[in-house]
């Protein structure tokens, strides 16, 4: 029984984990690049010097905490990389510092000017030293176009990887380019360019098996425009920017959620929402074993779009699911012991530590909705360093039906409290008991 609920969380967790970010972490797979064509060699020769290695160092020891890649965008020492490469520095400027290693192996200090946490981008500045920039493309290439990813995987030095452009990801909340090519840890923040040296996207993550993802050039151009408009001045408070971006982003995708036409699924006579937006993935599974005197069916919808905040904390999670329990064999008191334990045993899997988050506070009541009574729980925790952001969990279990019951839950991370409350209210209002 415990496994039913846990299993669903494991599914989504795997999605996140396998979409590994490319900032260098312990090595997992080294892809051999053995088919460099003449053109690749030319591209490498021409553009590799424009892609320095970016390192975030622990201040007191000077040891590497994160390594990634970046690229120059002008001759004034401005660069672009991933937010997740420099996220430690943004969160704890007192504990970390950052530097780049240029093609000559010279280290230069860098600082963070602006961040775009939603698209996972950061704008950096270093002292200018006649570096040659890369041009950022304006449009998208044709599908199947050969592209070249540059970066510093592991500690192997500057590397070029051939890949194939496979369009924008369908149904994504944040746009991502699907690249068929082996990106590896350490290449995060490096550019993927076409043969003419134009940046098509920024290396960001991989799902393994040559399925890789890029931040589209349009997001890079937008960040550069912000930096230029502010005359390249560093943002006064980067964490405040991160919080503001997340609030705007989450208010955006939640504003219409569970309004209008929402497809529904019927479980044990209860109509429940499913695939509320195109960016949701929904699955269902049943748990039935011969020795088990009860049966359950689970339906789970998740969005694959998550926003990296730190190694164990992701915002932008939207997950909702329903579980139906029924039993012919168990007496209702024993069925309710099962039901209660299943409802109770629910450590939500959103990460985070007490440094970043408060504990959850919950409100529990018996509530009338859609023709039946529900044990209803709403839990909220606040981000300590990102103002106005919260994680919310809404849970409800149908009561009063003897040996049958449906329970449902909605999980939102990195949202405003108002959006969370409004979304949960609309979600609950969708649930109707059709006798």
């Amino acid at each position, binding site marked *: 029984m415990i496994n039913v609920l846990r299993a669903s969380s494991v599914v989504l967790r795997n999605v996140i984990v396998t979409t590994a970010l490319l900032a260098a972490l312990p090595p997992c797979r080294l892809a051999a690049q053995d088919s460099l064509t003449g053109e690749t060699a030319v591209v490498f020769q021409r553009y590799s010097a424009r892609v320095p290695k970016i390192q975030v160092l622990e201040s007191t020891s000077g040891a590497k905490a994160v390594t990634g890649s970046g690229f120059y965008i002008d001759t004034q020492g401005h660069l672009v990389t991933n937010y997740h490469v420099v996220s430690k520095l943004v969160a704890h400027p007192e504990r970390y510092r950052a530097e780049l290693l240029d093609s000559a192996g010279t280290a230069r200090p860098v600082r963070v000017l602006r961040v775009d946490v939603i698209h996972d981008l950061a704008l950096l500045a270093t002292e200018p030293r006649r570096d040659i920039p890369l041009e950022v493309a304006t449009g998208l290439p044709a599908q199947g176009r050969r592209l070249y990813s540059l970066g510093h995987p592991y500690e192997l030095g500057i590397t070029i990887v051939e890949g194939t452009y496979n369009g924008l990801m369908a149904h994504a909340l944040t746009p991502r380019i699907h690249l068929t090519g082996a990106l590896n840890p350490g290449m995060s923040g490096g550019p993927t360019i076409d043969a003419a040296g134009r940046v098509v996207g920024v290396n960001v993550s991989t799902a393994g098996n040559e399925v890789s993802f890029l931040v589209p050039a349009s997001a890079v151009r937008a960040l550069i425009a912000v930096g230029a408009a502010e005359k390249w001045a560093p943002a006064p408070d980067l964490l405040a920017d991160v919080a503001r971006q997340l609030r705007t982003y989450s208010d955006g995708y939640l504003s219409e959620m569970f309004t209008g036409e929402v497809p529904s699924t019927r479980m044990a006579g209860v109509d429940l929402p499913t695939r509320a937006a195109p960016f949701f993935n929904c699955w269902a599974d049943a748990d039935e074993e011969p020795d088990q005197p009860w049966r359950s069916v689970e339906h789970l919808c998740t969005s694959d779009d998550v926003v990296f905040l730190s190694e164990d904390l992701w915002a932008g999670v939207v997950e909702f699911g329903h579980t139906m329990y029924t039993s012919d064999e168990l007496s209702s008191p024993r069925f309710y*012991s099962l039901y209660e334990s299943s409802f109770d045993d629910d450590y939500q899997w959103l990460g985070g530590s007490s440094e970043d988050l408060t504990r959850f506070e919950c409100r529990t009541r018996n509530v009338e909705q859609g023709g039946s009574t529900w044990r209803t729980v709403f839990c909220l925790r606040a981000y300590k360093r990102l103002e106005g952001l919260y994680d919310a969990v809404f849970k409800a279990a149908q009561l009063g*039906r003897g040996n049958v019951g449906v329970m449902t839950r909605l999980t939102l991370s990195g949202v405003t*409290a108002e959006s969370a409350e409004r979304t949960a209210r609309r979600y*609950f209002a969708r649930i109707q008991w059709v006798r």
Partner: protein
Amino acid sequence: MGAVAWVEVLDARGQVRQRHRVDSLPALLGRGYSCDVLVDDPWASPIHARIYRELDGTLQVEDAGSENGLWIPGRAERVHAVPAAAAPALRMGRTTFRVVPAETPVPATLAVDAEVPGAARWERLIPAFALATLAGTLYGVGELLGDWEKHKGGEILTDAFALVVVLALWAGVWALVTRAVSHRARFGAHLTVASAAVLAITLCTHVGEFGAFLFPGALTVDKVVLLPGIVTSVALLYWHLVIASSLPRARIAMISVAVVGGLLVIGALADDGSGEDHSVGRLEFVSDMKPLRARLIPAQDTTAFFAGVTELKSTVDSLAAARE
């Protein structure tokens, strides 16, 4: 030659602790080795009292010129001489005693299987075990209903039997203590007290679960069980001590309250929060649910429910601000 009289030294409950045989009269009572009845009491004089027979044949007790006097417990004045029959108890120094003439009649002999005279019905073994079995059965039923796996049957009996055994062991330890202090073990009395306490806690827990289910905003099982739990613990200790010792009841009550209170304080001090999970991932809410019909469950509407979210927000906001 038979005894003329007996001097019975009494404990604080009036139970006989020692008997001294008096073979001839007059007899001297006191701390000195010349006395007929020796008492180990530093507050008694070497020759403290004297027992003699009046001309009419009645036994008389008189003060033999003692330092601290002869008293009748409960009365404010020293007595000089008193007929033994008129004083159910006397006190010299700190020793309480009575003088019983040898011709005093005793009750009829009991049959071998008869109950102890004077023992209340609740002290007897059969009612005590009946109560323990009831507590065990309730516990077994609770365990059965709290579980949802397939049963081979008989597990309820195992649970019930296990609890009866535990209760019997508990009562046995108290009975050993009691036997060491006084002349009877009173196992049945201890078993009754322990069983009643377990029954009370079990019932309170069930009431608490229903309370938490019906009124999750106000009650939790812990809240419901806390006060009755403390009261039951004090009562349990109080009755075990009353049965086991001869101390005055007021003092036993004080001891019981002090011991339970002390344990609570130690528990509170030792609880540094490490046992509970306050991690940021934990959802802590009232999960108790019971198979009641919907119309029996007090419920609010969704508007009222979601109105309370504002309160949650200010709580977590203050938590976030407090830890800066």
